[in-house]
Every structure is written in structure tokens, then in C-alpha cells.
């Protein structure tokens, strides 16, 4: 067991190293001097005063990012800052705002969105999956399956746009846009998160439902179900108490793995609903050349994703050796 932990840890460290290195290189290899990308003001200086101001600004950035040092040192320095929670700055002509400030505000939004989407997907998908497995190949099942297919084919951003207008504005049930933090107004917070979470959840609902359905159909063919039925236990009880649990392992694995992907995967949804989350932050960083911020944000998400994978992997290999083997093969 200790060996397994050690091995996994080593893997984790290696992956984190490579992931951050990849991010670091991706941004540094881009043509152009970093300080010029961050403060694109080279040709302004018609007067000495202006030139001085700009040069001073760029000198500051160069010093900040250790740009005069060799690449590997830059990486090491960045990582050591990163590890200490210093994520660099958003550079603008008029300000240098720590990225950590923005991340502190954005990360909760993304986490909330992800959790709500996940919960919503599971809450809807589980009954659907259970029932359509129970009624496999009957009309109900076919309808559910077709619906699932349909949901899978909906581009979430288009769905988001449409929901925002028709549900948020025309019907006026929930706010169509914006973000309210739960400390300010919990009810309103939940309402504002409803549509974005739903847009994100729709695809997942289909995935989870199909997954659960097929596992469940298998479970329902097992002997212990037959036995339970023969004992006269009601169908509902058989389904929910006896069949669901053994069927839900794959579902939970996949749901767990999706957690990481969802954090960053909601980029477009966050933009569509004007949610100030990590996705929107990354999009902003990319589109405005704020590459220090980009580096840190992407690294955070990648590390988060790797960590979640690692934990899941680990938990499941303890729970069920079969999964370890399957995963090793996959």
C-alpha cells in the first residue's frame, strides 16, 4: 500500500512538473518579447518623459519575470513563486494587479458552477437512468434515450444563449445573466446560477443517464436481483436499494473525473452568462496577452485536474482492485 502511494505520488509530481513546464513553454515560445506583449506601447514615446515612463514600466516587468535570466531559471523562479501563492500580476499601463486577487474571486464561481452542474446532472440523470433501465426497450426507455441523444447534440453555448433569453427574459423565471455571490444573497445566488449550471449539465445528464442505464440493465440481470424480487420486495425498493448501488460505481467514477474537466470546461458558458469564473479569466488572459496570468491559471486548473484524477484513481484502486486493472489497461 505504501508502495502504491509512493508510486502515485511520484507520478503526480512528474505530471505536475510536466504540465507546468508545458504551460510555461507554450507562453514563452510565442514570438515577441514578453514585456512588449504585456505593455504594447513601444512607439508612443515622442517625448523623453513618455519614453522614460514606458521603459521604466518594462524594466519593472523584466525584473518581475526574471526575463534576463536563462529560461530554466525563469521556470524555477516562477514555480517557486507559484508554490508560495504568488501567481504574478496582470500588467496594464495603469496597474499591476496580483493574479491571486483575481483567482481568489474567480475560483469559487467556477467551483460553484461546476458543483451545481454536477449535482443537477446527477439528480436528473439517476432517476432517468434507473427508470429507463427498469423499462429497458419499452417506449419510456426509447424516449429517454432519444432525449439523451438530443441533449448530447446541443452545443452548450447556443443552449445557454437561448435559455438566457427565453427562460430568463421572456418567462422571467430566473435571472438571465450576471453573478451574485452566496454571501450577499443566497437565494439570488442560486437563481443566477441556475441557467448556467443547467446549460452545462444538459450534456452531462445524457452521459450519466446512458451510463447508469447500461450498468443497471446488467445488474438487473443478476441473480441477487431475481432473489430479491422472488422475496416479494417491491420493484421500487429493488431498483433503489438493491440495484442502484452496485450499478453506480462507473457513474461515480466518470462524474468524479468530470469534476476536473468542468472547472475549465465552462469557459464559454461563463462568457455567455457573464460569470466571472476561472474560464472567463483564462479567456481574458489569453485574449489580452496577459500571459503570466494565463500561465498561473492554466497551471492551477491542470494541477487541480491531475490531483482529482490522482485522488480518484487512488480511492478506487483501494475500493475495487478490478478498476485498478481496468484503468491500468486504459
Amino acid at each position: 500500500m505504501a508502495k502504491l502511494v509512493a508510486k502515485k505520488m511520484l507520478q503526480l509530481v512528474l505530471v505536475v512538473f510536466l504540465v507546468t513546464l508545458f504551460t510555461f513553454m507554450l507562453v514563452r515560445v510565442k514570438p515577441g518579447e514578453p514585456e512588449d506583449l504585456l505593455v504594447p506601447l513601444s512607439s508612443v514615446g515622442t517625448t523623453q518623459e513618455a519614453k522614460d515612463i514606458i521603459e521604466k514600466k518594462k524594466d519593472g516587468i523584466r525584473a518581475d519575470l526574471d526575463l534576463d535570466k536563462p529560461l530554466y531559471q525563469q521556470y524555477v523562479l516562477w514555480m517557486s513563486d507559484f508554490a508560495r501563492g504568488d501567481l504574478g500580476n496582470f500588467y496594464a499601463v495603469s496597474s499591476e494587479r496580483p493574479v491571486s486577487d483575481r483567482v481568489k474571486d474567480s475560483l469559487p464561481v467556477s467551483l460553484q458552477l461546476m458543483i451545481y452542474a454536477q449535482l443537477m446532472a446527477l439528480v436528473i440523470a439517476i432517476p432517468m437512468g434507473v427508470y429507463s433501465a427498469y423499462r429497458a426497450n419499452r417506449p419510456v426507455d426509447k424516449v429517454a434515450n432519444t432525449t439523451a441523444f438530443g441533449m448530447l447534440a446541443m452545443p452548450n453555448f447556443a443552449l445557454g444563449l437561448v435559455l438566457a433569453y427565453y427562460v430568463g427574459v421572456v418567462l422571467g423565471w430566473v435571472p438571465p445573466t450576471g453573478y451574485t455571490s452566496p454571501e450577499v444573497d443566497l437565494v439570488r445566488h442560486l437563481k443566477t446560477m441556475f441557467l448556467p449550471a443547467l446549460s452545462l449539465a444538459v450534456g452531462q445528464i445524457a452521459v450519466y443517464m446512458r451510463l447508469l442505464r447500461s450498468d443497471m440493465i446488467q445488474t438487473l440481470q443478476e441473480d441477487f436481483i431475481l432473489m430479491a424480487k422472488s422475496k416479494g420486495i417491491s420493484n421500487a425498493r429493488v431498483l433503489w436499494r438493491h440495484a442502484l448501488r452496485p450499478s453506480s460505481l462507473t457513474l461515480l467514477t466518470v462524474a468524479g473525473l468530470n469534476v476536473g474537466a468542468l472547472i475549465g470546461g465552462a469557459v464559454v458558458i461563463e462568457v455567455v452568462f457573464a460569470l466571472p469564473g476561472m474560464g472567463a479569466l483564462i479567456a481574458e488572459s489569453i485574449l489580452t496577452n496577459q500571459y503570466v496570468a494565463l500561465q498561473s491559471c492554466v497551471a492551477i486548473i491542470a494541477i487541480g485536474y491531475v490531483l482529482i484524477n490522482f485522488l480518484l484513481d487512488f480511492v478506487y484502486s483501494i475500493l475495487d482492485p478490478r478498476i485498478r486493472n481496468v484503468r491500468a489497461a486504459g
Partner: protein
Amino acid sequence: MSNRRVSSRLLASLVLVLAMVAAACGGGGTDTTDEGEEAGKPVRGGSVTYALEAETTGGWCLPEAQLAISGILVARTIYDTLTAPNAKGEYVPYLAKSIEHNDKFTEWTITIRDGVKFHDGTPLTAEVVKNNLDAYRGKYKGRAPLLFLFVFQDIADVQLSGDKAVKVTTKKPWVGFPAFLFASGRLGIVAQSQLDDQKTCDRKLVGTGPFKQVSWKVNQQFVAEKNPDYWQKAPDGKPYPYLDRITFQPVPEPEQRVNALQSGQIEALHASGANEFVPLREQQDAGTVKLYESEKFAEVSYVMVNASKPPLDDVRVRKALAHAIDREEYKQIINQGLFTMASGPFAPGSIGYLKDTNYPKHDPDEAEKLVKEYEDEKGPIRLSYRSTPSPATTAVAQFLQQKLKAVGIEFNLATVEQSQLINTAISGDFQLIGWRNHPGGDPDEQYVWWYKGSPANFGRFADDEMQRLLDAGRSETDPDARRKIYEDINKRFATQIWNLWANWTRWVVATQPNVYGINVETAPKLPDGSGPFPGLATGHPLHGIWVKK
């Protein structure tokens, strides 16, 4: 202000920007308001959430900040400017008690109002004002104002004059100087502590304004609460503001702002696109929202041409562009028939406005001829156009592209984020760019934008005639002569085509029906008793807003 007639409406402001989010101006539409009479007595308390078209990611370290209209609105809640425009567009003392000048307009004495306190409790003193002015003109240690540096190049010196006044000496007569003390609302007076704050000057805001900053979460919200010690008194004798709290939310997609207002999520928004005017006016007719529209002292939307690089350094090419664009079709398709097409930089009512400047008419044949002439001489014309990626601006870009293609000009599109657009303009790394600027005020405010060699002359045209006219305009004291000068400038644009004019930008502030105090009829009077300024291009004061329960 002892002397003025100047009626300056100037202002230049720096950096403004904002792509041409289609803009405003509905063929002489009325500045609507149907409130006023039934508004009743202002009520104190309550809060308002106001949706802005953009976040000001660079923050509000005012001397260095690059504020567009959204940033200005926030600045005006936290800070006060020394002057402010009144109903006639004259710049009257605001945070200053008085502003006086010598006969030659080269010495300006700004006297400080008594008993004004910053949000941190420190008093407003002449010294703080001097430090502010020095910071804006790049003479204050630790502050590096890039663009105000040029706006105030003609200031020779700022000195304390007793302990209640500051004396500003200019290098040449500067008739419109009071307008620059407003600077479109950008020249707020910042507390000493913020001025000296090296690390968090952009986000720890301390002013004298009607509201105090509570929190700012970028892209989320900016919250400000009532300043109980505000120096401006309401008619009931108690200090403004009426509201306990105001929250600004950046909502960049215009349709989302309208959605949010309609669904009751917010109390107010501002907008300037035809796509927003249509539904908002419908809702106004249905009585579900209240609008305050204004095209007074408007900005102009246009395509800015970088005249420093071939092929656009050739006036024939610029003329061909102007001839190629069907402005009537532009109005119908892009603006849904709503806004008045502009003839030049000066909006109706401004000094220098001309109904017909002789700007080139739509004439594809002439355009084609000019293109051919140029291409035979110097080779093919290839252009690129930059705009923000919003649907409204890309629609404009594609419309232009079609029209130019029709006369044989290839033209590719590149989108640039809003916050990058200004940098693109400053660095000159563009050929054509969608733009919006030059709000009405004193035409002298445009000096920095057009003066040869000015870093704010983003179009980079270097015209001796323009330089002469601008210098003359700055110092000319005779109003008629002054008007003539600016009309000449207007005509010069029409022949040199440094910009391709689109329409005057019409702004609308839309609120829930129970929100009062924004339009000219219910907004507070200025300290000198004159009426409130009717324009919306640089935002509006927020201390008079109140909500009927």
C-alpha cells in the same frame, strides 16, 4: 469662474475608446423623459445596481488610468472634479469654489472649497489639489501618467497660492482650460493617501465623492456606499446622495444588459447600440422601463485611419474609402435607420459643427477610379481592419469589407479585445480601426487627438495646417473667430479624410420606472445653481439618484 464665455466644451480625455459599438443619435430624436412632474419628493435610502458596458480592468489610479465611459461613471461616484459642465455646456466650478484667469488666459487660479473631506477623513487642501495636478501632468514622484502628460504639456507650472488656492501657469493662452479640469469626468481629485500608494493605487480608491468604495471584484461588481459627509447638500438641507448603496456590474454583452433590466435583475444600464434602442423603446412605450436618451454633446463613431503607413498615407486611397461606403445603407443596415450620420467630428450644437462639410459622397465609380490610379502607380491595396469581437462591431466591419471589396480593395478583419484595442491604437500597429471619440464640449479638447506628433494622435496624421488651426483655436479669445477656426478644421477633415465618419453616438440610460434623478429634469443642480448637463457621452452624476419605494 469669473470669466468665461468660453463655454468650453472641451475635453479630451484621453483614451477613450470603445469601439464603435454602433452608436447613437436618432435623427434628432427628442431627449425623452416623461418623469419629472410626477416624480414627487426624493426618497432617501435604497440601492441601485447599474450595469456597465465594460469593466475597467486597469483600475482607477486616476492620473494613470485609461477610462472609457464605464470607468468614468465609477470615477464620478467616488471622486469629484474641479469643474463640471452645466446645462449650456459651460464649465463651472464644482469641487473648486472658484476658478479665475488673467486677461491673457495664461494664469488660472483655482480656489479650494472649505470643509470638504476625503473618504479617509483627511481634508481637501490646496496642497492635495496641487499634488493631483502635478500627478496628472507627470511631475509628481511615483506617478507615471502616460497620456495626461500630453494633455497638460502646455502647463508651465502649478503653485500654491496661499493655503486655499492653486495657481496654474500655462505656456500659452489657454482659453478652454476649465474644460480640462473636468476632462470628461476623468480628472477626479484623489486623496493624498491614494496618490502616494504605490501598490494598490488602482484599486483602493479614496476621493471626496458622494460614495465610498466598499469592494471591487474584477468583472463581478464594484460596490460603493453612501458618503455621509458629502459636501454637496440636497434641497432638503441634508447631504447628497440619496442612495445608501450603488453597485456597478460589468455586463459587456449589450443584449444581456437589456435582459437584466427587463428581468428586474438591475435598476439601471447604459447603452448606445441600435439593437438596444429598439427593444428599450418598446419597453418604454409599455411603461416597463424609463429611458433617458441624449445626443447632446455627442461623440462620433468612425473608422480611424492610420495615415502614417502606405497605402493610407495617400489621400487618394483614403478618399476612395470614403467614396466606397454607402452611408445611407450603413444607417439602414447597421443602425436600423436610427441614428444621424455624422458629417465631421463636431456634433450638432458644438462649436465648429457644419451641416455639410463636403465630405465625399457615396460614389463607387469614383472610388474604383482612385483605387485603380493608385494601384497602377504603387501596387495593390491590402488593408486590415481591427475591431472588438462583439456582434455589433463585427457587423460594421463586415459591412465595410463588402463595400470596399466592391471597389476592388481587399480588406481583412481582425478582432481585438476591448482592453487591447486602446493599446493597439496607441502603438500604431493598425491600418483601420473602429473607434468612438470626441465627445462634445470645447473643441480645444480635441487638441491632443489631432496635434502633429501627439502620442494621442492615434491616426498619426501630421498636418501643418491642422497644427496651425489647433494652436490658433486654443488661444483665440474671440468667439466668432474661434468658431471659424474649428469649422475650418471640420472642413479639413472632409478633404483629407483622416477619419471615415459614421454616426453621432446616441446614449441611453435605461432604468426601472421607479428610479429618478438621472435625467436633466430631476438631476441635481450644480453648486453654482446652474442646470445639469444634458449630455451622456461622459456619463452623468450619480448623487441625485433616488428610488421610489
